[in-house]
């Protein structure tokens, strides 16, 4: 009985806090994406040769963990299959946050754009089963800085 109550409390707490945090995060992401839109992040490996840019590695990394509600929903999804929608928003936020952090770093260097942008994802809960459901999303690229300023 106590377990059930604990479960329900965790579930509603996870839902309430998780939803609140997610909404707030998305608002912040949209706002910062708008602000940094003038700094393009390009996937191409061939940067423009003119002018002669200085190059620097820029990275942005985010570590995310799921809330109790999302984990429960995903566990239920395991039974039936289909889109694990509860994790989709989480990973979308992590990717966009990482890219933004990378761009922020580039902007601080005065870069004109970032080339050869790539993502890496690493699970940091390997071997621990369900105890931690965390992953890291790393975005990195080559910042091109115009030496003329």
């Amino acid at each position: 009985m106590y377990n059930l109550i604990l479960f329900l409390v965790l579930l509603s707490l996870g839902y309430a806090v998780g939803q609140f945090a997610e909404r707030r995060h998305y608002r912040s992401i949209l706002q910062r994406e708008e602000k940094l839109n003038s700094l393009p992040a390009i996937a191409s490996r061939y940067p423009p040769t003119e002018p002669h840019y200085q190059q620097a590695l820029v990275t942005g990394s985010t570590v995310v963990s799921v809330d109790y509600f999302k984990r429960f929903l995903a566990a239920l999804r395991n039974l039936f299959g289909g889109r694990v929608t509860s994790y989709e928003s989480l990973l979308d936020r992590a990717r966009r946050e990482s890219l933004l952090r990378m761009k922020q770093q580039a902007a601080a260097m005065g870069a004109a754009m970032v080339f050869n942008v790539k993502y890496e994802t690493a699970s940091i809960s390997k071997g621990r089963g369900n105890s931690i459901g965390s992953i890291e999303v790393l975005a990195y690229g080559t910042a091109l800085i115009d030496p003329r300023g």
Partner: protein
Amino acid sequence: MKYRNPRIPEGINVSDRHPLKELFVLAGGALLLLFLLSWLLGQFGGRLARLLPFEHEAALAPVSLLRNDAGPELQAYLEQLGSRLSEEMALPDGMQVHLQMSGDDTFNAFATLGGNILLYRGLLEQLPHENALVMLLAHEMAHVEHRDPIVQIGQGAAIQVTLGLLIGDPNLAVLGSAGLYTQLHYTREMEREADTEALVAVQRLYGHIGGARELFNVIHAQRDKSGREEMPAIFSSHPLDAQRLEAIGDLARERGWSETGETTPLPAAFGRWMSEAAARAAKAKEEDALKPGLPISPASPAGRLHPG
């Protein structure tokens, strides 16, 4: 060449389906599956358990839980009623019923594995005549004849073991749990069939079924007195009293049975037998209290049977 990042519309990588809606659909589906699985397992376990020969069922009987407080005279009287009923009910060969009586004042009686039937003083004392006692015995013996105890335990065991394995926490000691034997909860169907069988036996024995109605009246009165919480064991909520009495009336009309008739009184010494049993129970309880760690007596609070 001009480089720029176009604005990508929202909602491509993320589904806008409400998480609560998803939760209800998924959890509902999972619960439905669980119920379906439990039901199927129960059916399977019950069928399997029915195949167990009666002699082997006796080996599983919770003998240590059944302390008999009946004196030799009462025991002989009960056994004589029991053997008359066995004949009328045509119990299969080898199906031996063991009647036992507890001196506790619990208002209860139940049949459990191995043909063991336990009657409590609390219920026996309130029976007005032998006919009602015979109806009670016949009802419990019908449970034994229908193999209801083992079927119930088989169903419970199949569900518990399989779900336990699924969840990853198998509680395979399913047959070791003491409460299981005394808290058997028969289905409405089982109770109804036991009622019918018992009525047939009572009719054959006495030529009328007056005793049956009396028994239900006693139970009904007890229920009124103690409220729904303290449901007496054998005639618990399945089927409800009113429906049950109605079913008796229907059956009597259908088969042309008389619902009234001359009743046989209980033996004159019945009251004395009861107080002797009560004294024996009190003594046993005292001894139990001196020896900690002994198996719980069936009259402990767990002895409230078929709750709900």
